[in-house]
């Protein structure tokens, strides 16, 4: 028996379909995240699970009971909802609001018992609001109010907890605090949460349900759902998906692509390494240049960037000098390039050949690029690299600082030549 089993449900508002043929389940004690773009029906799906919106057909089973067979109070004893920050018009105390969670247990002619008070105390303790019990809900912060709503939900002693973007309006520190509380509760309680933030969803959820255009597009472990292809398809935008450096969970970064055509039909080759070239690889690519780069080793950050951007790159395995094959690859790139950019990278024996080879192309415009005035090329060869650089400069290589100057210089060179 699964705590939540949803089979083939459709929901519509009037003639407008909001959800179509949704089927999924939640396993006991897991956190299931619902993600998807605005308007994909995430919140409506939660509302269907508590009968706030009626479904057209399909079945919803909660704890092996048909949703339609549950009375209002029975449902509230099984399923609790933490909404987005709600405005509370009247001046209730924190304890008043948490005690409302006991409503489905207290009869119309009864009043709360010592046990109800005990359960509220425990819920406030779990949600870390016990110290606020006497405070007015008007006098506490948004993050605290959200924790009060979690305490209220816990006072319902639910087996299923639904969160509707419960942390979306909060600072990141409060989001993490609240989601840590939820993470601790999972195991005993099955949690289904709508997330706006893909990275929070990837970190906190055991499984994700990705919605697109009213339907389930993908479901499964975060790593299987949040793939680059899925995200491109769903959000219509390029994103980098990498393992988070600390948690190893998928981490999604938008690629901020501001397209222009300044570099149309022009080729540049970038000699870089150690992450010194990532910014301009991206920039030049976005500006429409045909970009090549190398020689890089495959563990280099810049190599990763080139791969994400889909740029051709001459590469070597790690801790390997530059082989003759790579060198001829580099030469091919250099021959077809309109300009060569050398970034302010550390130069050692391993990558010195990248520079030395430039001496064979005296007519190629060469630009030494530094992000700002504090970045310099670092000579780790004991003077050998310095000599090559001096030689290149003597032949007309220019130092440029900052991306703007680089782009300006590249476009000037282009017009000179025309």
């Amino acid at each position, binding site marked *: 028996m699964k705590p939540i089993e949803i089979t083939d449900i459709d929901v519509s508002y009037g003639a407008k379909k909001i959800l179509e043929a949704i089927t999924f389940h939640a396993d006991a004690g897991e956190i299931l995240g619902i993600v998807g773009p605005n308007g994909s029906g995430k919140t409506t799906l939660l509302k269907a699970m508590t009968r706030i919106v009626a479904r057209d057909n399909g079945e919803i089973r909660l704890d092996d009971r048909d949703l339609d067979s549950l009375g209002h109070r029975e449902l*509230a004893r099984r399923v609790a909802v933490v909404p987005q920050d709600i405005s509370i018009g*009247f001046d209730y105390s924190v304890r008043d609001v948490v005690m409302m969670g006991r409503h489905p247990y207290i009869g119309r002619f009864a009043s709360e018992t010592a046990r109800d008070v005990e359960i509220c105390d425990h819920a406030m303790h779990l949600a870390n609001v016990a110290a606020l019990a006497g405070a007015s809900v008007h006098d506490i912060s948004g993050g605290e109010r959200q924790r009060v709503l979690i305490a209220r939900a816990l006072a319902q002693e639910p087996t299923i907890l639904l969160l509707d973007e419960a942390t979306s309006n909060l600072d990141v520190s409060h989001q993490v605090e609240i989601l840590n509380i939820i993470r601790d509760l999972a195991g005993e309680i099955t949690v289904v949460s709508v997330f706006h933030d893909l990275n929070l969803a990837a970190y906190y959820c055991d499984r994700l349900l990705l919605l697109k255009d009213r339907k389930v597009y993908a479901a499964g472990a975060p790593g299987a759902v949040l793939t680059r292809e899925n995200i491109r398809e769903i959000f219509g935008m390029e994103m980098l998906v990498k393992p988070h450096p600390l948690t190893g969970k998928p981490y999604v970064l938008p690629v901020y692509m501001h397209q222009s055509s300044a570099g149309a039909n022009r080729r540049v080759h970038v000699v870089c390494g150690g992450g010194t070239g990532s910014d301009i690889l991206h920039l030049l690519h976005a500006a429409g240049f045909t970009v090549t780069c190398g020689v890089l080793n495959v563990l280099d950050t810049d190599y990763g960037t080139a791969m994400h951007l889909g740029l051709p790159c001459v590469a070597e395995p790690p801790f390997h000098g530059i082989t003759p094959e790579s060198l001829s690859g580099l030469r091919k790139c250099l021959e077809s390039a309109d300009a060569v950019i050398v970034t302010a990278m550390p130069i050692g024996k391993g990558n010195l050949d990248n520079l030395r080879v430039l001496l064979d192309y005296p007519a190629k415009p060469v630009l030494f690029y530094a992000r700002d005035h504090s970045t310099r090329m670092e000579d780790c060869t004991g003077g050998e690299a310095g000599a090559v650089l001096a030689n290149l400069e003597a032949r007309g290589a220019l130092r440029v600082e900052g991306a703007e100057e680089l782009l300006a210089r590249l476009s000037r060179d282009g017009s000179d030549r025309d």
Partner: protein
Amino acid sequence: MRRTAPIIIATLICVLLISMAAAVALGPSGIAFGSLLTSDNAWMILWEIRLPRVIAAALVGCGLAVAGTAMQALFRNPMADPYIIGTSSGGALGATLAIVFFAGTGRTVLAFAGAMIATFTVYFIARRGGKIPVETLLLSGVALATLLSALLSFLMYTAGKSLHQIMFWLMGGFWNISWNDVVVALPILIGGAGIYLFARDLNILALNEEDATHLGVNVERAKQILLALSAFVTGIAVAVAGSIGFIGLITPHVMRLIVGPDHRFLFPAAALAGAILLVWADALTRTFTSDMPVGILTACFGAPFFIYLLRSRMKA
């Protein structure tokens, strides 16, 4: 809950009893305490005129305050009052019909019928797919009230001699109240008790309806029952005393400031305060004016208070 709430309620009970006793003693024909035993006339004034009148005023004030409290929570709008969904305009039309066509006979019955019919008309206009959205309910109330007041104006225009009687009734007051009227007003207590049973639901409904559903409140059914009970209580109040404004608006407000928003304490506190207010308003008008309609006095104090509330809410 605030720990002071039970003390405040106990205090209000004492104040109400004292007020009612004082109101019975007050009046244009000064009655010496000693004359009660000797003069049949004095006894009659006290027993047949003042006492029923004071009790009726207390019941009506209590009913308006309770219905107002329920409306404010139900509509999540502290500006709501018991007349907001057409109850008073329906009652007014019913009473006017009785005055114009039956020389006042059956005024109470027709006023009550008018109030209930108007309320349910508003309810059914606003109802859609088994639900009654609060906004639609308010707007339907305004729309129907406009229509009814047009009909009322037409009746008054054609009323001729009875116009004075209609005007008096519309302004609200407690003339010619007998023990019969007290009996008519008594069900207010039953309706009020019914509303009180929903105190905890209203605490939760005051957050928002979706939230209330999540906490196990059957929102639509609670709304139906509370609207019906409020209309019933208000309808009786209107039938007995015409439409007396602002008691149902102000009392819940002031009491919410004093005992807090928990309806389990707010209802009794507002009920008692409403009764006290109307007992005094009636006692003062009949003693110091020549029985001016008490609605004029409550409006004189109520409207500026309403404006003050509006201004302070705009600031917040």
